[in-house]
């Protein structure tokens, strides 16, 4: 199906704001932080101009931003927030709360490094640090995916009652303009039905949400055995486990409605005959395809695997995509200190017990806005090709592409 709607040249933040607007968000609460601020500015402009019928709450902190969103979501409003870096870290408690309360709020994470020392530029340490909060995490490669993912995110979140975070690289995408197709409001309205909350806030039918919960199950006043804390945690895990199916279904339906299909949790580039696979996330996936092209010209069978969905981690999809690989080179814009890049750990974990017996190399790149050039990725892969031996499947620690 051909693309519909109109194409404009937008930066990532504007694409995010347009995505929120098209999703008809009803409550917006956000606190400015570089490089996310233009998202909140644009949305407040939409509201003040009357182009978006939403409540815009200019909160005093990120913690409050998400508290506003969770409570608004409990009432039944579609809620939107956006943050970066320290702001996301400051939200940490509320991130857990939103997921634990099973509220389908949305967060645009404009990926930025975290201090100390201060740094406003891009890496993915902020969102990776939040991977265990129970949120679905989707990473966009370009500005079109930012917009498309937001619209899909509300469908996903409101189907499985799990909050969704769409992450995109600060400045590299947030402040870089590129062509973005804007679907029509009518088409989005058809695709995204109104939010139906599972919560009830009505004095005539009083319910109390998220009281202290015992370790063990407890019988309610009617004699029905209700969950203990652990059963509620299981349900959240189950929801994320099962959400893969919803994510793919929503992505397919999005394709049918708008002509851009998101039918996988992954982005695969020239994987069919590749025995060497570059793994990356976010905008780096684009740069990695340039590197793969260079390596192909040099005679290496190189492909790229981009992780679109990081939580739930698509283990089975990853194993299948890496089936033919003999060398996997994972580039991480984050570091789990004392171990390695987070995506590398996830890839290794996914491959455990599979038939894939590939050498895995991990490179930490691009922290704090350090530019990552295709030729550097090429160099790293070339070095890995030289060291790729059966008896040297993995290294204890990753290699850093920096000047130390």
């Amino acid at each position, binding site marked *: 199906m051909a693309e519909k709607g109109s194409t404009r040249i937008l930066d990532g933040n504007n694409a995010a704001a347009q995505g929120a607007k098209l999703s008809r968000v009803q409550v917006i609460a956000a606190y400015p932080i570089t490089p996310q601020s233009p998202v909140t500015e644009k949305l407040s402009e939409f509201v003040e101009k009357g182009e978006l019928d939403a409540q815009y709450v200019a909160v005093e902190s990120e913690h409050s931003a998400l508290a506003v969103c969770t409570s608004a979501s409990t009432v039944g409003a579609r809620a939107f927030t956006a943050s970066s870096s320290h702001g996301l870290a400051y939200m940490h408690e509320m991130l857990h709360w939103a997921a634990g309360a099973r509220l389908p709020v949305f967060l645009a994470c404009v990926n930025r490094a975290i201090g100390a020392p201060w740094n406003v530029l891009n890496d993915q340490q902020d969102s990776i640090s939040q991977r265990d909060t129970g949120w679905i995490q989707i990473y966009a490669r370009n500005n079109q995916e930012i917009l498309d993912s937001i619209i899909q995110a509300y469908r996903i979140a409101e189907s499985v009652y799990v909050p969704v975070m769409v992450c995109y690289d600060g400045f590299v995408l947030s402040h870089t303009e590129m062509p973005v197709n804007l679907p029509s409001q009518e088409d989005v309205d058809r695709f995204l039905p109104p939010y139906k909350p*599972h919560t009830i806030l009505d004095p005539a039918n009083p*319910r109390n*949400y*998220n*009281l202290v919960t015992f370790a063990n199950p407890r019988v309610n006043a009617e004699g029905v*055995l209700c969950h*203990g804390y652990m059963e509620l945690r299981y349900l959240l895990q189950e929801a994320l486990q099962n959400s893969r199916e919803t994510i793919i279904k929503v992505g397919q339906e999005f394709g049918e409605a708008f002509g851009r299909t998101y039918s996988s949790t992954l982005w695969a580039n020239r994987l069919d005959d590749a025995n060497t696979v570059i793994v990356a996330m976010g905008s780096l996936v684009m740069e990695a395809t340039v590197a793969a092209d260079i390596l192909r010209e040099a005679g290496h069978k190189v492909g790229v695997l981009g992780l679109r969905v990081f939580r739930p981690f698509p283990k089975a999809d990853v194993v299948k995509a890496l089936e033919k690989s003999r060398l996997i080179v994972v580039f991480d814009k984050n570091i789990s200190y004392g171990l390695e890049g987070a995506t590398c750990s996830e890839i290794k974990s996914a491959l455990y017990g599979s038939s894939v017996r590939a050498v895995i190399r991990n490179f930490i790149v691009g922290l704090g806005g350090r530019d990552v050039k295709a030729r550097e990725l090429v160099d790293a892969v070339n070095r890995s090709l030289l060291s790729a031996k059966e008896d040297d499947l993995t290294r204890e620690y990753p290699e850093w592409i920096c000047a130390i």
Partner: protein
Amino acid sequence: MGTRDCQHICAESSPAIGEAGKTGEWRDSFPVIDPEKCVVARQNKPACFLCWLYCPDAVITKTVPIQIDMEYCKGCGICAQICPAHAISMIREQ
């Protein structure tokens, strides 16, 4: 049988009396109303009701005569202290 039957996807609670159980069991002493002294009992009509007003646990009825729900009365003794007619005494539980 598991806990799925409750159909909650988050911790959603509904109101009921006695959430903490029979809180009357917490008492070390219990209130006794002397109808000879209680203004409501003596006047045999709605009056005073200060014990009802000040009870933290809403276990005293606003009726003629006044009644105390001993299943849930925690025995704090506020009613005995507040009663202007000194009609309520606290008796130690056996």
